[in-house]
């Protein structure tokens, strides 16, 4: 070590050094470098942003069910406010809830623990990642309160609507929206690099690639997908920002630009992005399914190769979002084929999880219920993607409530059911206390029933012809028949029930954090490394004796052993 002490991560250059480093108050409590704290910061920020996203959903669903009425806590909703609400609902839920919680919170918390490292390899870059993310969150929230209101051009931000304030009427809102998304991307770039380098270089001695827990693989593959797809969108974002602020015409046909170009740049990122959030969620489900059915994960390598294959394929399906954008029908055929192909590996992955359950001694703990709920709900989402992927059917279904229902049966399982799976499973490790199982089960059943009642009717609405971006259906008599109106109201009421059940979770979460029964180091009797250190792990995770790995993470119910689990770090 011959570099002077001004390098990025110098403090961490030597495994033991940082223990002696004097930390200031800010370093210790406000912006720490410990991966576990950064993970928790991401988690809490994501949960806070979910309140915004959920509130918007509440407001626009109330408007749809009872058009023009006074919405409690919101008041009367104008068409512009409606558009801003749906736009920011989608943007926030994907970029400020699903991404930070699934990838950043769990990735930060779990990766070093699960690979047996004392921290991320670049702890300060890690802290920087959170700081940039925090700024991006502040910018997106601020964009809601500027003159003209928040941006209302949908989360896909198609130009010319998004590029010209003469159309969107929110010059500041639309630019701040774009800047916030771009900042968020930078944060995840920094974070993703850290995850991958940590998983590659900082693994415990003895840990072969087949000994790495599936969720670590999934988060790393997701980070690679994100990094490989985000570049072109960044290029597009720069051009769109110039269109907005400097009046260039990259996407404006009046100036010789091409609005469809944005759609390509956006969906080249946008489709892989759905796998970016999907894979970490399936990784958590894999861990929970194995631990709580006391069985080895079925088809470890197959799951892994499936994930990689899906990731590669996900770069060749993007135009299925543009079937009615005037693309060449021959191209539409190709994209139909790739889209239908991609549903095969995903279905296969779900079946491998079900095969893991087969013959196991299943324990219906709260995390296990969530994992099963994920498989059930996500299958509905995956199956309904197939008719959308067939270009002939999609011409009619595009931009209808059928699409809304489809992607909520994918995104809700991912962003919420997946998160609850992981959170209820790793809560004891994160906070050193157990969550209440009864409250957990009440929350599970309330949520899972309500969410199906919320989104299943939307398939019907979509097939009946409801378009996804209409503010008030009473102007369309044939679309506001009593039947259609009533199932819309049923969906909104289900949303209210869904939201109400989240209070059970919030209470359980914060109550258990401080008052729950103290958790032992390994309450689920699991084999992976994070359960072989204290709950919660101290700074540096494993103390003086960082682990060595002797076997895979899923050695459950091994014949001839008295315990039904076999920690990875236990010498043979």
């Amino acid at each position, binding site marked *: *070590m*011959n*570099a*002077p002490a001004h*390098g*990025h*991560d110098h403090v*961490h*250059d*030597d*495994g033991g*050094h*940082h223990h002696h480093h004097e930390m200031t108050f800010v370093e210790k409590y406000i912006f720490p470098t410990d991966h576990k704290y950064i993970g928790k910061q991401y988690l809490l920020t994501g949960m806070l942003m979910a309140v915004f996203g959920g509130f918007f959903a509440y407001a626009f669903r109330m408007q749809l069910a009872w058009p023009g009425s006074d919405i409690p806590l919101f008041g009367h909703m104008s068409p512009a406010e409606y558009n801003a609400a749906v736009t920011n609902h989608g943007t926030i839920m994907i970029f400020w809830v699903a991404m930070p919680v699934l990838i950043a919170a769990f990735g930060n918390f779990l990766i*070093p623990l699960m690979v047996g*490292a*004392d*921290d*991320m*390899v*670049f*702890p300060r870059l890690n802290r920087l990642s959170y700081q940039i993310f925090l700024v991006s969150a502040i910018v997106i929230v601020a964009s809601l309160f500027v003159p003209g209101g928040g941006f209302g051009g949908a989360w896909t931000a198609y130009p010319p609507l998004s590029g010209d304030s003469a159309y969107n009427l929110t010059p500041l809102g639309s630019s701040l929206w774009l800047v916030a998304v771009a900042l968020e991307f930078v944060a995840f*770039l920094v974070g*993703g*690099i*850290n995850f*991958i*380098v*940590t998983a*590659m*270089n*900082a*693994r*415990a*001695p003895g840990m072969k690639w087949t000994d790495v827990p599936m969720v670590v693989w999934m988060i790393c593959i997701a980070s690679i997908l994100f*990094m*490989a*797809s*985000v*570049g*072109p*969108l960044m*290029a*597009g974002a*720069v*051009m769109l920002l*110039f269109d907005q602020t*400097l*009046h*260039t*015409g*990259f996407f404006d046909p009046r*100036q*010789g*630009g*091409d609005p469809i*170009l944005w759609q*390509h*740049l956006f969906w*080249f990122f946008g489709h892989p992005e759905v796998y970016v959030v999907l894979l970490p969620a399936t990784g958590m489900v894999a861990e929970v399914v194995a631990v709580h059915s006391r069985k080895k994960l079925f088809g470890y390598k197959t799951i892994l190769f499936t994930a990689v294959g899906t990731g590669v394929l996900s770069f060749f399906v993007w135009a299925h979002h543009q079937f009615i954008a005037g693309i060449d029908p021959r191209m539409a055929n190709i994209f139909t084929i790739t889209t239908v192909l991609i549903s095969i590996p995903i279905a296969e992955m779900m079946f491998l999880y079900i095969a893991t359950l087969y013959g196991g001694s299943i324990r219906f703990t709260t995390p296990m219920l969530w994992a099963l709920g994920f498989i059930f709900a996500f299958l509905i989402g995956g199956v309904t993607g197939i008719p959308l992927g067939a270009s002939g059917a999609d011409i009619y279904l595009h931009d209808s409530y059928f699409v809304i229902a489809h992607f909520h049966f994918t995104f809700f399982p991912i962003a919420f059911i997946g998160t609850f799976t992981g959170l209820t499973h790793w809560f004891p490790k994160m906070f050193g206390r157990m969550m209440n199982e009864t409250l957990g089960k009440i929350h599970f059943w309330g949520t899972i029933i309500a969410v199906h009642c919320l989104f299943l009717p939307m398939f019907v609405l979509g097939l009946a012809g409801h378009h996804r971006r209409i503010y008030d259906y009473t102007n369309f008599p044939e679309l506001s028949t009593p039947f259609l109106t009533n199932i819309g109201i049923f969906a909104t009421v289900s949303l209210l029930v869904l939201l109400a059940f989240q209070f059970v979770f919030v209470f359980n979460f914060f109550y258990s954090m401080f008052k729950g029964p103290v958790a032992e180091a390994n309450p689920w009797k699991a084999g992976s490394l994070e359960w072989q250190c204290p709950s919660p792990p101290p700074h540096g995770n494993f103390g003086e004796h*960082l682990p060595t790995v002797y076997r895979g993470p899923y050695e459950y119910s091994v014949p001839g052993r008295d315990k039904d689990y076999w920690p990875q770090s236990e010498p043979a």
Partner: protein
Amino acid sequence: MVSGGAFSGGGVRRRPVLPNGVLAILLFIGVEAMLFAGFFSAFTIVKANFAPGMWPPPGQPRFPAEATAVTTLILLVSGVLLWWSGRRFDTEPASARGLLAASATLGATFIGIQGVEWARLIGEGLTLEDNPYGGLFYVIVGAHAAHAVPALIALIVMWVRMQRGYLDAVSFTVARAFWYFVVLVWPVLYWRVYL
């Protein structure tokens, strides 16, 4: 514990695949390559939308293809010199330092000439906002400059550290990798945009 330089963190208890910093910069370069791929495909698609003979749009200045061929060459030579400097870093520090200085000087020359060309095109009336022809030119070449300038600064910092005798191999590799990226993306840019 493996340690080596400012970019390499702790906790590495096995033979690293590559030093942490090198792995990180390679991932970062991958992202940057995709950024430029996005720009180039945007350029290609927009250009294809114009009727034959309308690109460059009438009345707009042409990009200086011949002069830029020379600057392209300068940049490539700078890359070769840097590669050479890296090879000699361990064995002949003095000549490594000289080669690094020469490489950085050529890099600075490239940036300077491009800056002058840029100013000349502004003078000739190529604008950012009138049509995507000028707009894409400024955005893409500007994006390249936004990488070249920090990369050049990194080279200069490396030279200073080398001079003072505390440059470590990993930091040098990281800085070199980034400059190679700047060098190698330019010929593609030249081919897509200028020709």
